[in-house]
């Protein structure tokens, strides 16, 4: 099957007076139609930056795609003009955010914001857009969608706003949904609801999802495949069951050890020693080696490639036998 999204050797740099910070340092992954891929990693590992690069919305003017390619439906996105990106955003690729509280314009009613995007991308009449909007609000399980159309954002809870935003993101038939920590700002019971909603609606539409999160439990519940990021690199990727049950990379192992377990004896949680490396002066070789408990000489000298260790399971570590 042809991948919907194929990112190859993507480098994103932040240019500063102190030099270039390589925030994304050669990312490779593929996302297939209808697939639900989780992208996990700690803060600053480049998860959100990856999603923003796909949409052509790099956060600052000093950020540049230095190298690599982003293929969407076989079409190269890197180097597209702003106008070409605008036709793509919201129509083929859309995004939902971490902060549903601020992601709706406080000055307009929900109805006008949902119909706005339908009018923009589908060129339908106001009346048609309205019935369509109500249908979408119902689809994301908003009770009394007709009434919600006439309500201002401040009158809705965070969970409801995230539903509205999800309806807006999917309403024009997006093939790819980038979900940037969509549940982080919500409380736990709503989190589960929203995640299930995202999974169910995208399942029925055949939309692929790139779910960005730092919550491994969320990944375990919702994703089919997961990619683990560390300091601008993907260190391990594969089917969720493999990666979470039989992690191969020391960083993934350490992340899983940092989680509390319900069963078994109560132990102190393990933390990973050290801190996230400074991107201006990253460690040589494998970027994880200063914090790695099993690092060798070779880890300091050369960067390991992401290679297959089992079916669909890829790891970038010198300790893996394949790298010998």
């Amino acid at each position, binding site marked *: 099957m042809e991948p919907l999204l194929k990112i190859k050797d993507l480098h994103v740099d932040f240019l500063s007076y102190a030099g270039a910070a390589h925030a994304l340092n050669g990312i490779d992954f593929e996302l297939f139609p209808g697939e639900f891929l989780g992208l996990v990693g700690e803060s600053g590992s480049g998860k959100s930056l990856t999603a923003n690069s796909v949409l052509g919305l790099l956060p600052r003017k000093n950020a540049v795609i230095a190298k690599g390619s982003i293929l969407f439906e076989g079409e190269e996105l890197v180097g597209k003009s702003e106008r070409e990106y605008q036709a793509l955003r919201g129509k083929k690729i859309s995004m939902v955010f971490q902060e549903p509280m601020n992601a709706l*314009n406080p000055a*307009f009613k929900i109805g006008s914001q949902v119909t706005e995007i339908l009018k*923009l991308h589908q060129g339908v009449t106001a009346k048609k857009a309205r019935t369509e909007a109500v249908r979408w609000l119902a689809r994301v399980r908003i009770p009394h969608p007709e009434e919600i159309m006439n309500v201002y954002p401040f009158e809705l809870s965070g969970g409801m706003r995230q539903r509205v935003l999800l309806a807006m*993101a999917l309403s024009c038939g997006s093939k790819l949904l980038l979900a940037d920590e969509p549940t982080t700002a919500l409380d736990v019971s709503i989190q589960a609801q929203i995640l299930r909603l995202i999974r169910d609606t995208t399942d029925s539409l055949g939309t692929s999802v790139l779910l960005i999160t730092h919550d491994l439990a969320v990944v375990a519940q919702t994703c089919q495949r997961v990619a683990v990021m560390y300091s601008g690199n993907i260190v391990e990727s594969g089917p969720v069951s493999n990666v979470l049950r039989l992690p191969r990379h020391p960083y993934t192992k350490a992340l899983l050890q940092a989680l509390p377990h319900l069963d078994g004896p109560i132990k102190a949680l393990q933390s990973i020693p050290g801190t996230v490396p400074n991107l201006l002066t990253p460690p040589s070789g494998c970027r994880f080696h200063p914090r790695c408990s099993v690092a060798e000489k070779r880890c300091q000298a050369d960067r390991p490639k992401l290679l297959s260790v089992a079916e669909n399971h890829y790891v970038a570590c010198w300790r893996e036998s394949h790298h010998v």
Partner: protein
Amino acid sequence: MELKYYRYFAKQYPLTVVGTLIILIIGLVALVAPLISPHDPLQLHLADRLLPPGHTYLLGTDEMGRDLFSRIIYGARLSLAAGVGIVSIAGIFGTVLGSVSGFLGGKTDLIIMRLMDIMLAFPSLVLALALSAALGPNFRNSILAVAVVKIPVYVRLVRGQTLSVKEKHFVKAAQTFGASKVWIISRHIIPNCLAPVMVQATLGIGEAILIAAALSFIGLGAQPPAAEWGAMVSVGRTYLLDQWWYATFPGIAIFITVVGFNLFGDGVRDLLDPRFRH
């Protein structure tokens, strides 16, 4: 419920209510001027020149025998038009320029803001004077001149607002939905910058009326025989020692109107400022 709120507001801000009433009365007077003025404001009564306030001529007459009371009533039209016209023009252009400048940033921002800095380097009356003289002295041009001079105030205000609004998540969300820059500025930036613009505009009406009157006083605004308060004060000044009423009553009219708008503007600011909301 609604009524209770208004009563509470009147108790809390009595001066705002006074200001609002003044504006309403002046607005009404301007609206029905032909119905309530006892004489034609331009009609000459050469036999009744410079009469003191009395029965026939409530506030006296001017050097051509025109009824001052009627002239002041008609003058309300010109002054209100000047005040509202100036802040509307300045407000609209200032908002557009300010939001574009703040949102686009870079060179556009630099050019617009340095132009505004140049304009702000002149005292506003002096610049208005020069512009109005260059455009040709009449009432419409004097309004345009003052409006242009007032634009930088709104540009700076809106630019500052834009800088904070454009970092809000809904602006980024709009980008991910494929909105263009024009759309984002008109639909997301400007509506969320409007509250302080409204405050600035209502507070600015009084000052705008004053500057327009000052231009007329100098002779660069409304031309005789138009019934404009500033122009009336200007001519009346020569007769001030012997016919005190001629310059005094138009002056009082200006004073009351400006006070009314200032009190109203203060009230609007309190109302839109969340720190004052109860």
